[in-house]
């Protein structure tokens, strides 16, 4: 799509001479979606997006689950001012999709810990957090952002 010369220019303008292919790829993809290049914001601190979102004040936030902070602390921070639901995208990173993954349990020692967005008191109705599977983001986008059913 945009992974040619323009991509190289864009990446160089934001992050000069970055050699991170993953970032380049995702920036390339984001650039194809947004209106202006300046609306792709890169942050490096783990909870920097909380501050950026505070200034942007969006109505709809799709937050990757891995960036929700420890026990959803970032989400809690966002919900101090966010009036709308926050869409937590889960399982998007795993390619295979799905809320259940068996591989990680073998690797991670804390498999007994339940993820915070499984708890009823965090993501229940009216809690402001909507958990959406990564594969369902498209449907949720059509319904929520574009107003189509």
């Amino acid at each position: 799509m945009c992974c040619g010369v323009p991509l190289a220019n864009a990446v160089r303008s934001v992050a000069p001479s970055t050699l991170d292919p993953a970032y380049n790829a995702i920036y390339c993809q984001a650039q194809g979606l947004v209106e202006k290049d300046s609306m792709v914001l890169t942050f490096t601190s783990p909870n920097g997006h909380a501050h950026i979102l505070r200034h942007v004040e969006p109505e709809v936030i799709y937050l990757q689950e891995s960036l929700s902070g420890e026990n959803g602390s970032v989400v809690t921070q966002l919900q101090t001012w966010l009036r709308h639901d926050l869409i937590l995208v889960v399982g998007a990173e795993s390619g295979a999709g799905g809320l259940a993954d068996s591989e990680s349990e073998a690797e991670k020692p804390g498999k007994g810990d339940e993820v915070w967005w499984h708890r009823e008191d965090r993501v229940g109705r009216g809690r402001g957090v909507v958990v959406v599977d990564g594969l369902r983001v498209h449907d949720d986008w059509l319904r929520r952002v574009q107003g189509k059913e």
Partner: protein
Amino acid sequence: MSSPYADRGSSRRRGVWNHWVPLVLTVAVATAGVAAWAWSQRKQGDQEDSEEAADQDLDYENADYGENPAYGASRGEGPGGKPPAYSGTEARELGSIQKDSAGWGAQMSGALRRTPSPQQFLDSAKKTVAAGMTAAGAAVGSALAAIREEDKTAYADHETWSEEADAKKERASPPLSKEVSKRRKKVAIVVSADNHLEDTDSDGFHEHAVSDILAHRHTASSTQPTDLLQSILSHIPKNIDFIKIKLYILIFAPNLKDTSFTTSTTKPPPSLSSSFENIDHDQAKTPGDDAKSPM
């Protein structure tokens, strides 16, 4: 000498006389009384002053109605003759004629108070109905006229209103677009470009923050990094209506910090560093050289 038959006949005649005369007299008196009552009632409406005098002059025994000219004809025939009821109707006709000369208002009020006699009732009813018809007609006509007038004004108003509405629409259309631009739905997508397991481990934050899925992504990202990292954004449709949606994409890139640090040490960006550092030594020396050369 009177024969017993004659006596009987005379007695029979006398009996007939005795029988019929009181009956006729009674009927006549009763009729006269009814007529007089009706007359007095009617008179009440016409002349209240002469009413009392007429009442005082009434003599029920002789069915004599005094100096009232309406009863002049009936008075001459006596009580046993024509029943006074007829004279009553005559008087009623007379009264109605007299009343015609009277004012409309008095007639109306009298008609309201009077006992209903057929002819008068008919007359008054006719008049009332006619008056009512005219009044109703006038009312309906005025109402229709008012409605038509209202319609006229409403139609005129409609024209002006539509003009106004058009003007308003034209005037409102530029602010509307402005409002739409202001009301653009802001959408933020926060994704992570962090796929370096070593960096996150050294960061220390993700050791505790990441969940099982993130760990899974770390293991999987080694095999297919780009495909997995683009997963959220690849689900977003490409044709976004920017008139309605303002899309921000936040990318978490913790490893970018290190690269920027490294690049800043080797080659600082021109905009961030001091402008004096950008000047080469040759360029900095040129004023001195220029100053030296003329000497």
